[in-house]
């Protein structure tokens, strides 16, 4: 056992737990989000250590990056709204009564017990136990891709992935639904320096995103990570006001949202026939089809994530989903 590595592991684990605790207990919400972002990045690091670079990439880009951006945007909005409330202090409502300490402690003790039970269950489970290793190894040659994670995502368990894209679609429909007609906090705008930086960074982001997408077939990366990176570009465009969504763009945005789901589902259905079932790509076209799906899904993910960040559906006067196709 490599000793320095173990020390690293323990330290990393401790800091992850400490950050998780800190982010929940710190008073200031902005600090909370920042701590969370650090927590997410460290978790991603831990996953790299556990030889899961794809997951680490996804967590860093989507789980931490996009989630962090969403949280910050919401915080900005809340501060704006409550700022307007503070202007009329007379009508303010009493703040929520704090939860009695006893209840909190009881809850914490309860959760602690659950955690202990889970830990016991975990320790009793077989280490490095049974898995799909053999099955995947056997099936990889006929999957049409070289990278196992991509093979799982887009071939063996493609149905899961399709539904995951459907979840994204449901989310954007729900968000548009929820935020319709919402009075708008002025969008956060970056300073001039940052704007310049953002403009510089844009091409690089596109290159990285495309590379991730393309590399997904052989190396870590793929549609989700690529989509997230492209979405980051969208965020920058929105923040720098380089792109302001117009009501007229709604239609295009809708098409962009459903593009991935639609193509994915259509391909899945159309390959059925000649003794094959849905999602059973013919071997000779497997790579092409998977790349097609990945490309379309990437576009949808990018647009959807950006739209989730932006929130409201673009209607007259206000702004909405981004399109970058």
């Amino acid at each position, binding site marked *: 056992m490599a000793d320095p590595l173990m020390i690293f592991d323990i330290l990393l684990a401790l800091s992850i737990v400490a950050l998780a605790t800190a982010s929940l207990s710190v008073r200031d919400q902005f600090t909370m989000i920042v701590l969370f972002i650090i927590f997410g990045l460290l978790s991603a690091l831990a996953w790299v250590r556990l030889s899961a670079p794809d997951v680490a990439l996804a967590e860093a880009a989507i789980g931490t990056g996009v989630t962090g951006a969403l949280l910050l945007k919401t915080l900005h909005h809340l501060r704006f709204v409550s700022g307007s409330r503070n202007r009329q202090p007379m009508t303010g409502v009493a703040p929520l009564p704090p939860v009695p300490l006893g209840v909190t402690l009881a809850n914490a003790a309860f959760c602690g017990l659950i955690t202990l039970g*889970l830990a016991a269950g975990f320790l009793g489970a077989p280490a490095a136990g049974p898995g*799909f290793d053999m099955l995947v190894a056997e099936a990889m040659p006929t999957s049409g891709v070289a990278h196992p994670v991509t093979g799982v995502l887009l071939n063996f368990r493609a149905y899961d992935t399709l539904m995951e894209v459907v979840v994204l679609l449901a989310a954007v429909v729900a968000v548009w639904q929820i935020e319709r007609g919402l009075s708008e906090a002025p969008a956060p705008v970056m300073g001039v320096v940052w704007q310049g930086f953002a403009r510089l960074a844009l091409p690089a982001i596109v290159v990285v995103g495309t590379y991730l997408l393309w590399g997904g077939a052989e190396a870590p990366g793929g549609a989700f990570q690529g989509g997230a990176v492209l979405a980051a570009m969208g965020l920058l465009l929105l923040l720098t006001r380089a792109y302001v969504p117009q009501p007229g763009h709604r239609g295009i945005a809708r098409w962009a949202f459903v593009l991935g789901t639609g193509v994915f589902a259509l391909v899945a259905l159309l390959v059925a026939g000649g003794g094959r079932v*849905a999602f059973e790509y013919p071997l000779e076209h497997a790579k092409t089809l998977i790349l097609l799906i990945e490309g379309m899904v990437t576009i949808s993910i990018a647009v959807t994530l950006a739209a989730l960040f932006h929130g409201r559906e673009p209607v007259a006067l206000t702004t909405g989903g981004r399109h970058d196709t």
Partner: protein
Amino acid sequence: MSVDLSPITLAIFVPLFGAIMAFLLPRAASVIGLATLALTTGAVIWLARAVLTGGAVVLPLGGWGAPLGIDLRADGLSVAMLGLTCAVGFLVSVAALDSLKGAQQARQRQYFWPLWLLLLTGMNGVYLGTDIFNLYVMIEVIALAAVGLTVLSGSRAAVQAGLEYMYASILGALLFLMGVGFIYLQLGRLDFAGLTGAEPTGALIAALALMFVGLALKTALFPLHFWLPAAHANATAPASALLSGLVVKAALYIVLRLAQYMPFPSETLLTLVGLMGAGAVIWGGIQALRAERLKLLVAWSTVAQIGLIFVAFARAGEVGLPESWKAAALLILAHGIAKAAMFLAAGRIKDEIGHDVIRDLDRSPIRPTLAQFTFALAAISLIGLPPSLGFIGKWSLMEGAMAAGYWHWVAVTMAGTLMSVAYFSRVFAGFLRFDRVRAPVGEHQGWALADAAPLTLALAAIGLGLLAAPILGFIEIGYPFGVAP
């Protein structure tokens, strides 16, 4: 190249494409929605025929086959749930067509259809799924669409309730996901078949507990029901009908399936499940008695009824489980149909009278006769009076409990029945009292075509009791529950 499609794939992909089309073409959303429902129902009927003639149907997606790939499987119970979802869904859609027809509801209408069709996709996916991780993704599809529907009206109460619902949903799904993790750790596979016959180790018990608590949160089993009443009471009527009638059933169905395949640890756990159910029956009943608004009363009755389904599940202990699930399944079907009818009727009453404060129902000179009649019919099934499907379910519950000597479950059922009589008769009094009306009572006021859908549902809830024997025969197809210990 010819494409040959299985009705199983159609049951999932038709609503998915419907949702996409309804989202892309908002102006035609209603037409697309209804057409989708009709087509999905057709696919389910096709599937039902296949299951009737050939037994359970399995479709290995991608041709890989479980455990590497994901299998879809349709047996009697799945198809019964699909049938419930499509039939109730279709009628609720018809009702929604009317209740969303106003000009000021244009935006609601625009979002209702894609969300509802996505919800349908998710529910059909749950009923056909055999992979627990896939079920996790599916319940998230359901959760997001359901929350979207909950807050359709955009009122503050609805948004507040929707947010609580969202928290509960996410937490439930994450508990479930954690359970999936433990199952993977122990067994290294995620398909249902892989669960069969496994030794109940610590990790598996942890997994089972996590998944059960997660699902209980999603299906609002007492004491994890806290989010349900507000969410179901504040949604618009068609959304309430879908949420209460159909959505909570998806998580319940997963519980049934897990009990089929997982090694169920012990009598103690089953008793605990029954006790939670009993708590729900009593607490839901008490709250329904106290509720001031009609829709809130109906929502609390859902809490009580969900509890009853769990009591049915636990009615005869571990030994009786291979039979008990049938009573639970019957109650699920009965509640799905009757509760949808009741929420739609309650919505109609509220629309006609202008409010739904129970104690002031009798002050209104407007009496939406048909909606009130529908409400009463639905109540008959929910109370469990013959010959409704609810009665048959209750009969099965009590019969099994009695035969096994579990008198306490009989007592709980009877108490629940009496309470339901008490709280529903509060409403009937409001319908039938006339001496508090100042203005002359109009004759047959408030008839509308929109009453047709709930009335059909309510009549079905009553009439299907006569078809209980064939229904029971059907849900047993391809479902060898006896395999589980």
